[in-house]
């Protein structure tokens, strides 16, 4: 059985104090990743590089450098660029691509002493909700290996749930951190749009994407956010406003907070056990002195069509660079036109091609007004829903997915059905507001014991409040059992 990882603050302190070395810490993570290879979590693990990096951290610790994350092993989703380490985005077209630079978020974590142990599997180019769209195999949920871990950050969620690493980075465009966090029973944070630099995140929906942590504890997510957040001269959409220390008031409790239950998020199609998890959490909030009331986000049902227009339009443009010309996999062809078509058709998976077609169509001559322009206006209506709600409440609580983790292979027949399941998460990306998922309980679903999480959403820049609420829920919930594979204890 795998021993649980301590809080990362404590872990880093013990490395700095030389009670343990970064090297042995990282070695533990590497061993665990080997032990769980069958889960399909990692696309790339470079042991030698990770151990070299760990040894360097030990040297820096010896020299007395300030290393808030000394020796903390992390996994990063394979759509985040890592210098000299393959970055495939789960796609054949990038199967041999090695970036010459690090994503800003990764560089900041490494500066703080964290060590990347591997790149995690994902839905190809972050497009999907089950990690079944990877060109390199799917990821199995540590709670039930016949089930999906969620997506698109499925590998990152599973890596944390299985106890391989205490922290993984994921990305969230329409729920891709939050939904897998819920499916795998981990904490997942999608920061406010513009809170964390996107430099180095392979773009999918540029106005929607954010990088965020998946962890076992709310406090760990807070710590990671303080390290990765903040202005970056390389990202014009990243805010330069100072980042508050979100680890400060974590234990503050929820006395006096007003919490909203958006009724559109608790309608038909939500599994009763999921609904119950949300009301359990709401009860504990009330018990802690929060006021809980129903609110409405009336345009919620329009979030899916708006999202799928905006995201696919932006993606169709962002993925035009994958053409086999300057990097990536080039198909064999004797003329240029065929080179383009064949490289892209052979290199990109079906879901990616479908979304590119949708986005290209929506942007094509004569369609801009009806699709992208209209969707961006509906987006304003969705934002206003949130703004209005936040005049009367400080945060919202809702499910993160309509059901617990579904079976692998179950949803892949009908793309529209997959898209509709994103209804609980996409609005936050459209509005730019932060979303935090915290595991709430284990439920019985289709004969398996599966985790269910609750989602907290707040106004833009309200991560501190969400983390405080999440921390309260976590400590009043009590310990959850570990997944059968790896996990906590």
């Amino acid at each position, binding site marked *: 059985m795998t021993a649980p990882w301590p809080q990362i603050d404590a872990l880093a302190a013990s490395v700095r104090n030389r009670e343990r070395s970064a090297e042995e810490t990282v070695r533990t993570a590497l061993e665990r990743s080997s032990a769980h290879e069958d889960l399909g979590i990692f696309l790339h693990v470079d042991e030698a590089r990770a151990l070299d990096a760990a040894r360097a951290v030990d040297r820096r610790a010896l020299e007395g450098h300030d290393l808030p994350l000394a020796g903390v092993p992390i996994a990063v989703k394979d759509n985040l660029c890592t210098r000299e380490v393959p970055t495939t985005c789960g796609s054949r077209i990038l199967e041999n691509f090695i970036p010459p630079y690090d994503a800003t978020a990764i560089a900041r974590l490494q500066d703080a002493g964290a060590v990347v142990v591997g790149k995690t599997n994902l839905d190809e180019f972050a497009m999907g909700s089950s990690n079944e769209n990877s060109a390199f195999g799917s990821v199995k949920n540590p709670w039930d290996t016949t089930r999906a871990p969620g997506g698109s950050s499925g590998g990152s969620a599973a890596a944390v749930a299985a106890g391989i690493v205490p922290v993984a980075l994921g990305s969230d465009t329409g729920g891709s951190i939050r939904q897998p966090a819920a499916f795998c029973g981990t904490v997942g944070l999608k920061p406010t749009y513009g809170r964390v630099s996107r430099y180095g995140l392979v773009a999918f929906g540029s*106005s929607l994407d954010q990088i965020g942590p998946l962890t076992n504890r709310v406090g760990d997510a807070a710590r990671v956010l303080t390290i990765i957040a903040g202005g970056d001269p390389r990202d014009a959409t990243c*805010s330069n406003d100072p980042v508050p220390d979100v680890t400060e008031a974590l234990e503050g409790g929820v006395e006096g907070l007003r919490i909203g239950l958006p009724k559109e998020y608790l309608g038909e199609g939500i599994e009763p056990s999921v609904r119950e998890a949300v009301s359990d959490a709401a009860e504990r909030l009330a018990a802690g002195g929060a006021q809980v009331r129903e609110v409405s986000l009336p345009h919620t049902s329009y979030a899916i*069509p708006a999202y799928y227009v905006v995201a696919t339009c932006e993606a169709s443009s962002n993925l035009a660079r994958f053409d086999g010309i*300057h990097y990536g996999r080039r198909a064999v062809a004797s003329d240029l036109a065929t*080179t383009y*078509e064949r490289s892209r058709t052979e290199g990109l998976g079906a879901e990616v091609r479908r979304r590119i077609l949708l986005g*290209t*169509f929506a942007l*094509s001559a004569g369609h801009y007004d009806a699709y992208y322009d209209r969707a961006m*206006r509906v987006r304003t209506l969705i934002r206003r829903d949130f703004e209005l709600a936040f005049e009367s409440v400080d945060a919202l609580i809702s499910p993160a997915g309509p059901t617990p983790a579904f079976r692998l292979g179950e949803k892949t027949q009908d793309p529209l059905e997959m898209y509709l399941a994103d209804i609980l998460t996409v609005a936050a990306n459209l509005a730019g507001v932060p979303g935090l998922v915290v595991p709430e309980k284990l439920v019985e679903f289709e004969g398996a014991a599966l985790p269910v999480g609750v989602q907290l959403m707040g106004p833009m820049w309200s991560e501190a409040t969400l983390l405080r609420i999440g921390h309260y829920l976590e400590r009043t919930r009590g310990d959850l059992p570990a997944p059968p594979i790896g996990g906590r204890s």
Partner: protein
Amino acid sequence: MIEPETVLKVARLARLELSEEESARLAVELGRILSHVDRLEELDVTDVPPVMHGTGGSDVYREDAAGPTLSVRDALANAPDAADGCFRVPKVIDDA
């Protein structure tokens, strides 16, 4: 709702190859998705401005200072085919 010929045209724009069977299938799939997207027409968006940029920020600039470059070797490191310091591709037909 969307014709297979349209799908083929869009595929050409996007530099994707589609067989006839695929374009027929995708016409159905995309058609269903677009029908759902058409729900957006139900909303009155007169006087509703589009969200242009995520944070509502503006006026972000860089000072005009030259920064580091990649070596030619690094620049071409991921190139599928390169020669004489350049990316090599099958001949471009026209001169633009």
